[in-house]
């Protein structure tokens, strides 16, 4: 008996020693006014925290609060000057000259100059850096040529620091939405002296230098990133928050539990099954999200090469039932492709509102008529086909619902096949499917990010659908001098898309978020990330 107990006690002592070691409790000694801090869950360990390389939303959220660019969205979502005081745009809209503020500093105290911007953009375009988002900078003259090694001299790229505080930018072609692009992470500057000396600067918290409202305090991989107020920030008075902790909780159920137990204050990955309850408890706010959930047709395979069949399948879906009973996140029914939340020619008009709707939801009569017209009355001898989706509960539920709708409304049988994420992407790009699920979130708030996806030469056009008229319209839009003309071309392009129907729009995304009531004045971008520069905590509300 004795020997067993000795062993047992020994193990217990050792394990408690290990435990005490890992409990990093930060004990703040000095008594001071309560720190304004909160916890935001980005849901995953970032792939890159280097602005030149970042691609995902978790990365954008962290980087946007650590860095500041030439311009920045303000609390009512308008682009305002930030490091650039003012700028003039050439008549042909291809040359921009930015005049930078003086006295803007990096978190290590060094000054932010135009040279930093020039160096950063050229670095992001460089083949050696291998940035996945290099193509976001292809608007600059010779940007694409430099990345694809057609030219090797970086000075030919259309960005140049005329002096410490003026930056001249040359574009390939006029881009009316170029200013909104500047809010993109790939256009943020990095500190030239630091980065030149240490290419791995973005890999650890000790060498991480930024120029935004916050600076990096701690980075525990796979667990949390802690950022604190950056005293060297040029506009630091506007910043009220002292510290933000970004947690990386992947499971929605867990995030919800941690939110309700006070461990997380800002949650963005809410399980749809809980949305009803949370809405009644008033805990959830529906943020806009520029994205469309749709199905792709493989237009090269009969019967989907016939427009009438495609339209029949599109009209026979009850989208209202799906958004109300399955997704439950306040999503809007998609009766066109470009979502709401994108400005038309003038700021007060929305592209979607102006474009209107192209068909009515759950229009079973017309669907049946079209199907009969296409030679399959009542679905007779309609070939069995497969509906491909990638592994996830939400996609499965929607696919199962639509499968039944087609069966009931059109009498056609479809089999659901589910593939792991990258196998599914591979099948899609190789057109190895009949109908497939897809989703697209806009890169920037402009219709082109949605519509240029379906030009014949686009790498993202997985429908095999080619239409020269559509391609011309998009090309003309890209070259259009003024916004009004550009928007008319884009509307016409969408009309063709909706008439040919290579895709089935289903709903427009929303971003249900749960935020503690005492966290105020944060900016929730329709592109999915959140800016806390002007945010503050209502201590009274918090202490209640």
């Amino acid at each position: 008996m004795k020997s067993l107990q000795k062993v047992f006690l020994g193990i217990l002592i050792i394990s408690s020693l290990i435990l005490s070691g890992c409990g990093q409790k930060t004990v703040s000694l000095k008594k001071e006014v309560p720190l304004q801090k909160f916890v935001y869950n980005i849901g995953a360990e970032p792939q890159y925290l280097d602005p030149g390389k970042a691609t995902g939303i978790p990365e954008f959220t962290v980087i946007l609060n650590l860095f500041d660019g030439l311009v920045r969205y303000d609390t009512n979502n308008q682009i305002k000057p930030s490091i650039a005081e003012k700028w003039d745009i050439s008549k042909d809209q291809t040359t921009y000259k930015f005049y930078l503020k003086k006295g803007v500093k990096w978190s290590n105290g060094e000054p932010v100059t135009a040279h930093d911007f020039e160096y950063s953009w050229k670095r992001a375009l460089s083949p050696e850096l291998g940035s996945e988002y290099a193509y976001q900078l292809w608007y600059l003259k010779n940007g694409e040529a430099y990345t694809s090694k057609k030219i090797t001299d970086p000075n030919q790229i259309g960005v140049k620091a005329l002096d410490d505080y003026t930056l001249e930018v040359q574009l390939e072609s006029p881009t009316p939405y170029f200013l909104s692009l500047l809010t993109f992470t790939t256009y943020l500057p990095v500190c030239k002296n630091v980065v030149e000396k240490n290419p791995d600067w973005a890999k650890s918290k000790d060498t991480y230098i930024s120029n935004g409202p916050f600076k990096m305090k701690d980075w525990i991989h796979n667990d949390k990133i802690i950022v604190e107020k950056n005293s060297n920030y040029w506009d630091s008075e506007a910043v009220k928050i002292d510290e933000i902790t970004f947690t990386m909780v992947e499971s929605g159920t867990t995030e919800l539990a941690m939110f309700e137990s006070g461990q997380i204050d800002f949650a963005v990955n809410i399980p749809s099954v809980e949305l009803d309850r949370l809405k009644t408890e008033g805990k959830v706010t529906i943020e806009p999200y520029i994205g469309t959930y749709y199905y792709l047709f493989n237009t090269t395979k009969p019967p989907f090469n016939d427009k009438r069949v495609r339209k029949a399948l599109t009209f026979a879906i009850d989208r209202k039932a799906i958004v109300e009973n399955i997704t439950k996140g306040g999503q809007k029914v998609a009766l066109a492709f470009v979502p709401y939340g994108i400005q038309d020619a003038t700021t007060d008009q929305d592209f979607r509102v102006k474009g209107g709707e192209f068909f009515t939801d759950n229009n079973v009569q017309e669907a049946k008529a079209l199907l009969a017209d296409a030679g399959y009355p009542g679905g007779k001898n309609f070939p069995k086909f497969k509906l491909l989706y990638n592994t996830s509960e939400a996609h499965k539920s929607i696919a199962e619902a639509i499968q039944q709708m087609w069966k009931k409304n059109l009498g056609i049988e479809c089999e659901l096949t589910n593939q792991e994420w990258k196998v599914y992407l591979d099948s899609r790009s190789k057109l190895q499917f009949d109908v497939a699920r897809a989703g697209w979130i806009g890169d920037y708030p402009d219709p082109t990010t949605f519509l240029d996806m379906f030009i014949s030469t686009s790498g993202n056009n997985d429908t095999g659908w080619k239409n020269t008229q559509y391609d011309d319209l998009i090309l003309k839009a890209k070259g259009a001098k003024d916004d009004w003309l550009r928007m008319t071309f884009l509307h016409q392009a969408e009309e063709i898309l909706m008439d040919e129907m290579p895709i089935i729009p289903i709903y427009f995304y929303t971003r249900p978020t749960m935020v503690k009531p005492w966290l105020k004045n944060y900016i929730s971008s329709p592109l999915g990330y959140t800016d806390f520069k002007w945010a503050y905590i209502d201590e009274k509300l918090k202490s209640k």
Partner: protein
Amino acid sequence: MEINPKLFEPLERKEETTSKVLPSLNYWQDAWIRLKKSKLAIAGLIIIIFIGIFSFLGPVFLKSKYFETSLYNAYKSPTLEHPFGTDELGRDVLVRVMYGGRISLAVGFAASLVNLLIGVVYGGLSGYLGGKVDEIMMRIVDILYSLPVLLIVILLMVVLGPGLVNIFIALGISYWTGMARIVRGQILSLKEQEFTLAARMIGATKSQILFRHLIPNTIGPIIVTATFQIPNAIFFESFLSFIGLGVSAPMASWGVLASDGIRAIRAYPYLIFFPAIFICLTMLSFNFLGDGLRDALDPRLRR
């Protein structure tokens, strides 16, 4: 009792030669009789048969189909019309649990079969042959243990696509290693015992020794391991279906119903309750039956 001399006459001997002799039974009949004696084993058997009927014949009596959706009465808690309630697409959970039973029971049996056929034989051979062969066979098991199952599963999905048979193939590849290790361990100690030497002495061949002497002696751990692998198999199937190798939606096994249901544990707990109950019930009955079998088949317990 008064003793009188008459009592002392010799007793004529009735020629009943032997006392009543039990009817001669072969091994299986005797095992069946002894199995019938243990109440638990019979209870287990009855529950399994009930679940079998529930899964295979149940749907016939119900009008609602497992795939019939009605989005506007999703998440209705159990009522008379839908005794197990409805799921997120308004489908009747009762009929889905019935269909789910078919898959999960099939997978459970397949897993036990794979375990018993491949695992026991592999482990037995490895343990009995010993030496170089044992070393190689065990290292192969180590390799199979280490290979990432998810990689193999995705490859199978790409090559084979969905289907119940593919699950059996996935089980066949990697699901018997645990059993093999345990049986090998047992056989290693058993083969040193006298009865193996005795068996060899009377000229029993290697396979006879292994299958008629050694393996029956490890019947205990075998049955325990086999029955314990069943829930793993059921949830391994749900993992495979989640990846796309298993049964394609809207058909769903207990494992899939449970993994979908757990997400709604706060709002609609009945969604996880019924699949979980059936899995536990199946496990209990397999185990009672297993224990009963172990006692019935174990040669040493036959007085």
